[in-house]
């Protein structure tokens, strides 16, 4: 059913909090996501021409790198992009067949590949580019928040987090219940000023991004070369400085 579940206060909203301050842009999340999911619930994830001139395929995680700001105040920011499991996911409501749905019990947005007709309208409706079409199967694919890991009782409890979160070497990805104000992820969002991507679209993403911390550029300035010292060494250095600057 592509109508959305009726919102209720305190309902579980599983999602990710992504820390743009600590992300190092290593793409490990993307790779582990691809590895897990190609053998998991939405798999296989196709690769077209993998060893050829134009390799391409379906990935649920895409890691961009941006420069923000100018000069000394400018920053390089690595930016992982994946499904935000929105509260108002138009990708779900536009689906004509009921293949796309948002689960009432935890808010995860999924595609039923047996109902999908491959019209691609959901990918047009997503402002974030979270959905990628599987040309081999003729159906739409997307992040499942590793539904086959987080509820998987056959793997150790510590591993019951999405593959991207499990693998991140910088601990830049956090998984939890964003509908619970007392959860660790909600704490992070509050304390670090977590924010929504493109809030003007009105999709109300569940996933939040933590902004890069403000670093005062606190490295001490290099000392000026000594020009007018009185000691022999300082005079020698001053002479060297003049000779080399000439």
């Amino acid at each position, binding site marked *: 059913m592509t109508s959305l579940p009726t919102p209720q206060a305190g309902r579980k909203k599983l999602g990710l909090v992504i820390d743009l301050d600590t992300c190092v842009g290593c793409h490990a999340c993307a790779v582990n996501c691809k590895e897990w999911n190609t053998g998991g619930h939405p798999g296989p994830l196709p690769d077209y021409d993998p060893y050829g001139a134009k390799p391409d395929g379906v990935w649920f995680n895409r890691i961009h790198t941006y420069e923000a700001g*100018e000069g000394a105040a400018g920053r390089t920011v690595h930016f992982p992009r994946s499904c935000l499991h929105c509260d108002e996911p138009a990708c*779900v409501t536009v689906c004509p067949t009921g293949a796309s749905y948002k689960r009432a019990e935890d808010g995860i947005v999924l595609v039923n590949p047996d109902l999908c*007709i491959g019209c691609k309208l959901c990918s047009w409706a997503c402002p974030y580019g979270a959905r990628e079409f599987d040309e081999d199967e003729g159906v739409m694919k997307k992040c499942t928040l590793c539904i086959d890991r987080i509820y998987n009782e056959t793997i150790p409890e510590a591993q019951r987090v999405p593959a991207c979160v499990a693998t991140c070497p910088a601990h830049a990805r956090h998984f939890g219940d964003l509908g619970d104000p007392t959860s660790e992820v909600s704490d992070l969002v509050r304390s670090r000023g977590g924010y929504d991507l493109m809030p003007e679209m009105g999709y109300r993403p569940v996933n939040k991004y933590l902004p890069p911390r403000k670093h005062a550029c606190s490295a001490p300035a290099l000392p000026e070369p000594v020009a007018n010292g009185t000691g022999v060494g300082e005079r020698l250095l001053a002479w060297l400085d003049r000779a080399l600057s000439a």
Partner: protein
Amino acid sequence: MTPALSVILFTTASGAGYGLLALLGLLAPFGLVPAAPWFGIASLVLALALVSAGLLASTLHLGHPERAWRAVSQWRSSWLAREGFSAVLTYLPALGFGATWFLARRVDPAAAALGALAAAGAVVTIFCTSMIYASLRPVRQWRNAYVTPSFFLLAGFSGALWLATLARAFHAAATLPTTLSSGLALLFGLAALAAKILYWRAIDRTPGASTAETATGLGHLGRVRALEAPHTEENYLMREMGFRIARKHARRLRALSVLVGFAAPLLLTIAALVLPALPALIAALAASLLALTGIFVERWLFFAEATHTVVLYYGRAA
């Protein structure tokens, strides 16, 4: 957005078909169509053929065309499902309208009622088609106040041109004056042209609400520039939603669609009003075919000029 040939064919053909069906259904109750059923049969066959060809074409871009029947189930939330649902339902009164007209050899009250229902179905279907696009927030050139009026006026224009052509072919002037059918085509054509010009002005002048800064949320640091892309080759997102058309080509194609789709059919329609019977019929037919060609170009541009917010992540404007 990458122009999808099957969807362009669908919206162009079904627009003309539903336009013709709606006009027939609306004129019949007022006694403005000939009682002899051949005009009615030919018109309804043409209308439903255009609609059916369009609907079939639209299934060609699906990953699973054999599952297309599933696409009517979610009418409560999806404009695409509503479109499919109302397209299928409209066949019932349209076929009933033709059958009663043919059997009674006149438009009796039953045929008139079915005609009005078929017209309502056609109008609802065109509305749903336009809303598939007009409801998509990530594409500013589609979520635009001129989109729905344009779909209606272009359907009315191409439908009225075919109505005028058929009226001439079946010598229906006694009940459906050529000034009425051609007049409708002229009115719809001028209104549609005005809507398209206003649409083009609007998309040229209104920037999108979303930027690279809002897409990344990094605007507080300053201007955001893409430094490195996640992948070296084009992926699905770029192929489907990253279509780029050179501005100069867009301008030329706009001019072409105005000339072929509007100016030529409008002039031919006026010429048909003063020409003798056979040349007038040829002019009317040429006007109908040229308008379909011009609307095809217009619909191609409707896709090609549309930008999707996902390209913001790749350092492009949307």
